[in-house]
């Protein structure tokens, strides 16, 4: 969440799920909330009942659009233009919060200059929406007491992902909608413990609680606590860099814990090729995933029902995971497997339980400092929770923005890395369906869920289907510059003409054979949401 960290100094969801109910306006962009985060959607429905205005910006007519006061189907990848257009209207009409901007932010002047160029007419043209709708959105968002922004992968999975997020941060600061209840900029995390994996230092540039690896103080602290003198003070490789490293021979071994990059990463052919080059591929998982099938060593870990521990949800809430049943067969707790390997490798670890591990996490990570298993009984705790008498933090940036001052960024619109042309005339966007989750490792092994939606499909607008002579539920081929797959057609006006959609859970016809690995230069998130394809029988 590099965009939010740059603007506010913290990359997490600023506010809490429960607060959504009391917002006056909710702006949902790039989040198919009812499908991907159903229990957040429930709060949005309650807000609507309480009289909130709902704005949805999504290229598809997602379910939430039916409940929206304004819905725009902006062209995939045009988010910056749309948002700049909205902010242009707010500035022109002087609906911005001058006091907030003066007191709590910096960088406003250059931001203002950039946004000046994005008249609603110009933004409307780039985003393929109407200028009236842009004005309506600006009015609804700016002219209310508490406005909340909710976004998800539809914002981040672009080559301009960080720009998109910074633009949302601009919008919130422009109207003073940050640091108050029921406002904020709220990324919904796709997987249940994405927040926790980030918090725990599962990133190449930070150790726990975002302590940078390039820092003498951090280095000294952890070297002492971990009894080691080899902590490197350089940023490590991101996932795409590790895959490239395998490909060019700089990386020899890869240890994959509970991930399935063969299905989840863009341009599967490239991923497969890279993984096949590994001298040592270690995969620790609960199923023999596509990635595990390539491994040299497969280590059976356990699932959430078979272990103790904690997850940190999208609103920074740490809650307990409790063991209900014994592991299947010889499967072992993941931390134990890693500890055993570490000891055999020659680096000593002697933890007795996850609780003991959490004690160490709390001692070394300021925002988790007050978290203990005892205190997690009940509702859990939202970090920052620095001390054992701190109640946790429902919303961030309350008195001051964590960064000191919120930083406006002047962002110009850049088109997606791959645009449609005569050969590849359709814009493919990818996402989830309600019954499945991520690469389907778990949901497709659940009978009830697999029965709901047993196979993949391609959504296409009736107009396009007619022109191409496609039959509903008939088979069709889809090709991009990277690969080709075959799938079933679903004719629906959920997608506008020229845009097609595929879910990415299905190994038989994986959308990520087609997607573009072009990444955002900072966040290194691939552009899953836009690539150019052709469709043929």
């Amino acid at each position: 969440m590099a965009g939010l960290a740059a603007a506010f100094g913290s990359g997490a969801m600023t506010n809490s799920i429960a607060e959504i109910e009391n917002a006056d306006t909710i702006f949902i962009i790039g989040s198919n909330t009812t499908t991907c985060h159903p229990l957040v959607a429930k709060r949005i429905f309650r807000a609507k009942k309480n009289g909130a205005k709902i704005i949805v910006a999504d290229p598809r007519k997602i379910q939430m659009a039916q409940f929206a006061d304004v819905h725009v189907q902006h062209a995939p990848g045009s988010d910056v233009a749309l948002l700049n257009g909205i902010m242009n209207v707010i500035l022109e009409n002087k609906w911005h919060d001058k006091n907030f901007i003066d007191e709590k932010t910096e960088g406003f002047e250059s931001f203002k200059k950039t946004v000046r160029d994005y008249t609603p007419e110009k933004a409307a043209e780039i985003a393929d929406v109407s200028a009236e709708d842009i004005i309506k959105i600006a009015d609804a968002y700016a002219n209310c007491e508490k406005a909340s922004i909710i976004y998800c992968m539809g914002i981040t999975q672009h080559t301009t992902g960080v720009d998109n997020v910074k633009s949302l941060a601009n919008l919130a600061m422009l109207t003073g909608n940050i640091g108050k209840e029921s406002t904020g900029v709220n990324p919904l995390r796709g997987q249940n413990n994405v927040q926790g994996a980030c918090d725990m230092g599962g990133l190449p540039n930070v150790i726990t609680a975002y302590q940078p690896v390039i820092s003498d103080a951090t280095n000294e602290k952890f070297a002492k606590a971990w009894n080691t003198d080899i902590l490197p003070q350089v940023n490590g490789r991101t996932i795409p860099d590790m895959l490239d490293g395998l490909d060019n021979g700089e990386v020899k071994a890869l240890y994959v814990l509970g991930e399935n990059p063969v299905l989840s990463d863009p341009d599967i052919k490239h991923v497969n090729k890279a993984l096949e080059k590994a001298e040592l591929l270690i995969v620790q998982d609960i199923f023999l995933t596509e990635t595990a099938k390539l491994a040299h060593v497969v280590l059976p870990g356990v699932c959430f029902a078979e272990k103790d521990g904690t997850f940190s949800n999208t609103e920074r809430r740490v809650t307990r995971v409790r063991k209900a049943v014994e592991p299947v067969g010889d499967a072992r707790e993941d931390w134990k497997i890693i500890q055993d390997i570490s000891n055999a490798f020659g680096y000593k670890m002697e933890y007795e339980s996850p609780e003991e591990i959490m004690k160490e996490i709390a001692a070394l990570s300021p925002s988790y400092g007050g978290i203990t298993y005892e205190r997690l009984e009940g509702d859990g705790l939202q970090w920052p929770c620095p001390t054992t008498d701190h109640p946790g933090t429902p919303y961030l940036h309350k008195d001051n923005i964590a960064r000191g001052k919120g930083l406006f960024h002047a962002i110009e619109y850049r088109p997606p890395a791959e645009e449609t042309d005569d050969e590849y005339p359709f814009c493919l966007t990818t996402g989830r369906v309600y019954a499945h989750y991520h690469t389907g490792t778990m949901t497709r092994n659940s009978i009830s869920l697999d029965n709901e939606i047993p196979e993949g499909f391609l959504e296409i607008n009736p107009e396009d289907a007619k022109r191409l002579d496609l039959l509903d539920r008939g088979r069709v081929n889809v090709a991009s510059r990277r690969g080709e797959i075959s799938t079933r057609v679903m004719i629906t006006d959920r997608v506008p003409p020229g845009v097609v959609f595929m879910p990415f859970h299905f190994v038989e016809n994986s959308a990520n054979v087609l997607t573009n690995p072009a990444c955002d230069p900072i966040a290194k998130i691939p552009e899953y949401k836009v690539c150019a394809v052709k469709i043929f029988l």
Partner: protein
Amino acid sequence: MDYKTVLTTCTYCGCGCNFFLEVLDGELVGTIPCKTSYVSQGGLCIKGWNVHEFVTSKKRLTSPMIRKNGELQEVSWEEAIDYTASNLKQIKDENGSDSIGFFASAKVTNEDNYILQKFARAGIGTNNVDHCARL
């Protein structure tokens, strides 16, 4: 007959709903929503309601495996751990710490992730740690 319920947190999406897993004679048999859960307030989505099903799937991995003669073959934990550790050591000795990479996971617990990155940084000596948050 031994029946109990265990309060825990959903493993699927980032909402982090709490619910009770129903355990009958050591087997998972169902999921019950939790009224007092701060997040879910007694609600669950279709994935949550069925979350116990994949746990008992016949396809779960039950034994460590090592590739021998091109095929993955079941081995003892001892062999799997030794094989992994000695190969990591050899690769580190020959090519340096940064020739080894780690994918942490958005699906495992905080404690699991903490141990993995600690092993990468303090054991191996590399910051090559990342996970699918980006994805």
